[in-house]
């Protein structure tokens, strides 16, 4: 807030008392004669005319309209309302311009008589407030254009790497340093799990640790990224969640869903440039039709959930980090998007005109077609659907649309470092903890032909990625300070695959048929991976969503139900039995067996006391049961289930 505005506000409100009604004072507009609905009638006025100075961080005149309590409490000049008596309420006198020197809002258009009438009726009817609803300042939309900040000097960062250079001043300012880096084993485990979703085998791990080549970490990253089959299989789950692509899923009863699995796997395997990837999904290219087709339910569906609107919501959320869900029902209270914005976009996907519905009621009007950011260009309402979809794709991937790249690089950063540069990752108007980093990575992605593996490689080779893992902590987006990757949980699929690896038992058959992809294998091929199977109770308990809604981050909290499933669930018990039998059949001595299990599961040798305890658990005869119990103890351990 500027100093002068503060002064004006103070002058206006400070020390005010309700003036006695002089004869020449205009009459107060009458209270409207109907039941007032806070949500529909009052909130829009407060949000439209008051929040800039009297909500969130701003409390001009010591006054906030954030909550019912704060309205009742009033400001420096005392209570702003007299409950049940609008005529005697200061708020009404100010907004009804009773005193030309003291009129609210101080800035912007004054309230209409009808609006004053609504506020009067609201006060007279007892100031009903929607429970728990907080009036927040209007959100500030993020800058749309790409921006490429200058890289700070390599010299002072002690590194040529652009991310290191970008973060050096940030870390220095917060008293942290990126000089401490994790050891080779920790790094390799992270990189394998993050890039291809598998544990490194003991042989691969040892070879990597023994390698004395400088830059071997970068070489490993490159190798893993080149293993297209494992890479695509791992990233399939992330994109299945985001695109609501499931191998079963609701809506199949009436053919209401269409898979994009083959297209998606190929796109990932070929490392399709991201702008092309988006274009094909948004235009419904052959094999990719399912995403904008959405889910059709039998029967009547709320207007805000018709397939065209699903497409508008999902395209906005997944590719732009824009939440259009509220606005598809009514003008949003949480951001600036309006019903017409939502219909303007949804209409692009429609075969025929979509009538605007507000809260499921037809309005008898039609919204002109438009993209969320009309400054980038227009969509031709006269064009056929195919043409409109192409225009939409043009705008999404427009070179001046920095948001497309920012949204995806933020997701990738979040996947690897455990937390986005902006959180939540679906709300890209929030403030990044480091705007330079986000903006630079976004432009860099575009400059490299939207090659996602380029950005992935860049992040993986940065010092930031190689810092020791830190606790997730409870800092919110505004107070978060980056000082290392956040400890992550294995996803359901990573866990299942890791389990298959250490029990040497893989599912027999995939539930989805996928094409071959090229690339150079970095690891020995494995069996059928969890991403290619429909959900089972184990992966459901571990957090694989049912893909009814778009999901872009998996739960990070372990739950009791999941622990129960892992403690005595049949899926796991069967798998452990197979593992016990495998390891017993290897016919190795007990001490070697413990070592092998630790190396395969945790990528390290057991400590002497662990070795002793593990041997006790297995028992002198190393029975299949004993081995199963050790396997269970290992896979239930934080060291196995978390990525440090």
């Amino acid at each position: 807030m500027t100093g002068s505005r503060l002064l004006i506000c103070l002058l206006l409100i400070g020390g005010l008392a309700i003036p006695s009604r002089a004869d020449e004072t205009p009459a107060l507009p009458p209270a409207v004669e109907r039941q007032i609905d806070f949500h529909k009638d009052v909130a829009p006025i407060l949000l439209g005319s008051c929040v800039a100075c009297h909500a969130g961080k701003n409390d001009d005149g010591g006054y906030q309209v954030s909550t019912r309590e704060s309205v009742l409490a009033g400001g420096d000049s005392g209570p702003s309302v007299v409950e049940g008596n609008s005529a005697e309420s200061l708020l009404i006198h100010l907004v009804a311009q009773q005193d030309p020197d003291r009129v609210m809002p101080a800035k912007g258009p004054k309230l209409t008589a009808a609006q004053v009438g609504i506020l009067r009726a609201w006060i007279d009817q007892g100031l009903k407030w929607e429970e728990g609803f907080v009036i927040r300042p209007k959100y500030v939309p993020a800058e749309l254009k790409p921006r490429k900040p200058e890289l700070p000097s390599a010299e002072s960062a002690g590194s040529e790497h652009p991310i290191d250079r970008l973060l050096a001043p940030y870390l220095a300012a917060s008293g942290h340093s990126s000089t401490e880096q994790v050891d080779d084993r920790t790094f390799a485990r992270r990189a394998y799990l993050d890039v291809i979703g598998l544990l490194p085998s003991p042989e691969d791990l040892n070879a990597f640790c023994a390698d004395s080549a400088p830059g071997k970490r970068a070489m490993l990253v490159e190798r893993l990224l080149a293993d297209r089959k494992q890479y695509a299989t791992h990233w399939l789950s992330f994109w299945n969640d985001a695109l609501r692509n499931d191998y079963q899923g609701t809506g199949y009863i009436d053919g209401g869903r269409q898979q994009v699995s083959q297209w998606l796997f190929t796109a990932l395997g070929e490392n399709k440039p991201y702008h092309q990837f988006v274009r094909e999904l948004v235009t419904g290219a052959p094999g990719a039709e399912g995403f904008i087709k959405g889910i059709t339910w039998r029967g009547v569906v709320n207007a805000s959930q018709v397939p065209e609107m699903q497409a508008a919501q999902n395209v906005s959320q997944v590719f732009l980090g824009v939440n259009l869900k509220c606005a598809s029902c009514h003008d949003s209270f949480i951001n600036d998007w309006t019903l017409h914005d939502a219909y303007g976009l949804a209409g692009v996907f429609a075969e025929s005109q979509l009538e605007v519905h507000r809260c499921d009621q037809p309005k008898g009007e039609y919204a002109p077609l438009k993209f969320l950011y009309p400054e980038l260009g227009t969509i031709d309402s006269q064009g056929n659907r195919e043409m409109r979809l192409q225009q939409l794709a043009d705008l999404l991937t427009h070179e001046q649309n920095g948001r497309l790249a920012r949204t995806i690089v933020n997701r990738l950063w979040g996947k690897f470092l455990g937390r986005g540069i902006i959180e939540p990752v679906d709300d890209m108007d929030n403030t990044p903890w480091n705007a330079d980093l986000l903006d630079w990575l976004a432009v860099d992605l575009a400059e490299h032909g939207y090659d996602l593996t380029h950005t992935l490689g860049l992040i993986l080779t940065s010092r930031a990625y190689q810092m020791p893992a830190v606790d997730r902590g409870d800092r919110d987006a505004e107070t978060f300070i980056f000082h290392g990757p956040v400890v992550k949980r294995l996803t359901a699929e990573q866990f299942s695959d890791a389990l298959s690896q250490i029990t040497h038992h893989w599912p027999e058959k995939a539930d989805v048929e996928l094409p071959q992809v090229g690339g150079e294998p970095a690891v020995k091929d494995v069996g059928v991976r969890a991403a290619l199977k429909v959900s089972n109770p184990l992966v459901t308990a571990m957090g694989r969503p049912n893909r009814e809604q778009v999901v872009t981050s998996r739960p990070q909290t372990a739950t009791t139900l999941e622990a129960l499933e892992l403690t005595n669930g049949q899926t796991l018990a069967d798998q452990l039995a197979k593992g016990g039998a495998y390891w017993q059949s290897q016919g190795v001595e007990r001490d070697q067996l413990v070592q092998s299990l630790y190396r395969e599961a945790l990528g390290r040798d057991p400590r002497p006391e662990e070795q002793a305890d593990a041997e006790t658990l297995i028992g002198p005869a190393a029975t299949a049961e004993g081995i199963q119990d050790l396997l269970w103890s290992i896979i239930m351990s934080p060291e196995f289930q978390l990525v440090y």
Partner: protein
Amino acid sequence: MPTPTRRDFLKTASAATLSALAAGSPRGLRAELTSDVLLPATADAVIVLWMGGGMAATETFDPKRYTPFEPGVESNRILSTFPTIDTAVDNIKFSAGLEKTAAVMDRGTLIRSYRAGDLGFILHSRHQYHWHTGYAPPQTVAAPHIGAWISKTLGPRDPVVPAFIDIGQRFDVGEGEELKAFHQAGFLGTEYGPFLLPYPDQAVNAIRPPGGMSAERFKARYEAYKKLIARSPVAEHGSDYQRESLERSVDNAYRLLSSPAAKAFDLSEEPKESYDKYNTGRFGLGCLLARRLVEVGARFIEVTTEYIPFKHWDTHDNGHTRLSELKPEIDAPIAQLILDLEARGLLDRTLVVLASEFSRDMMTEGKPDNQVKDQVEVPDVVNELKYYGMHRHFTDAGCVLMFGGGVKKGFLYGKTADERPCKTIENPIQIEALHATIYRALGIPANHGYEIERRPFYVTKDGLGEPVMELFG
């Protein structure tokens, strides 16, 4: 014994739990659940008895004129295919075959005016989603099951017993994905989701060591695990919330499996005489399991006759014959459940709710004034037994039976017309009000909610559900 509340749970929870709650859970719309928020409760536990597939009111709890089967009878004349019987309450009659439940009607309230949602062309699982979450699918955020709302808001009654238990529904018997879409905690997080027990007689397997493992071995495995994780290098990293969350969840699971409460899951522990009274099949045993679980402190339990397309209550043909078989499956167990809860002094604080997604009728699909596309051919004249029954999906008037938990005894609410289309003519009640009433019994205001994606999301739609206070004694 006073019932532990969520607040007590929070008081005893470790700091780590609290940080996990803070970090992993949607924010409540209020800062804290205090007594100002929770209303005085009349119930601590809820059992929903789910008649999946559409239970015809005129064949069960709202009988109309009986028309016996005879070839050539006009379809439109048939309102009920069973005679009417008396109940323990003078002004309440049931359809024949429900004599045992009729005998306990003086313990409960019958609602005959449940109006299901207008969701267009009927899909059972959509209406079931609507009934269970209070929101019509699809939704832009995953709407939680009523059991999950209760679990999240009140927490477990006994810390070792899962707060939300679902008995009897399998997900591989048709419309499985649609059923999964609401058998979940949605945006509240999987911690509050259902503990699924599809086979009541095998429920014990869900809380005992995995097949073949002795109790000793199970204990030894857990102890070895605790030792090993304490020796792991990551234990030296200092605390991190994910590790604590994981270790705590394993401890919770172990605690349940080794607790005395676990015995409740084991139906073989039930005296034979009592077991036999319930043993009419999976639903009957589900009722027995529900009773045993409430005794050890379960919070919300649903027992279903199981929804399988075209099976059980989903009578697209042979309605009369099917119900002749189905009624004996439900009648004795329901009555026994009520009597047993009462005998144990639990009925007063346990709300039992029997409901279905909608009713059925011979002629009307949907509502009389809002008919939807027919799914069943109904001949003008019934010549074969297979056409004798309520085969269309009627959404204007269904029955809800409630016992205990503070509701009136021997009370009838709502009225339907005696002639086709037998629509609701008095006191219509919709899902928002029905849910608000159930929540009210538990002390949860209908506008209680949580914030998700910066928007408020309430236990009843828009927070506007109005409990029917007339139903409470």
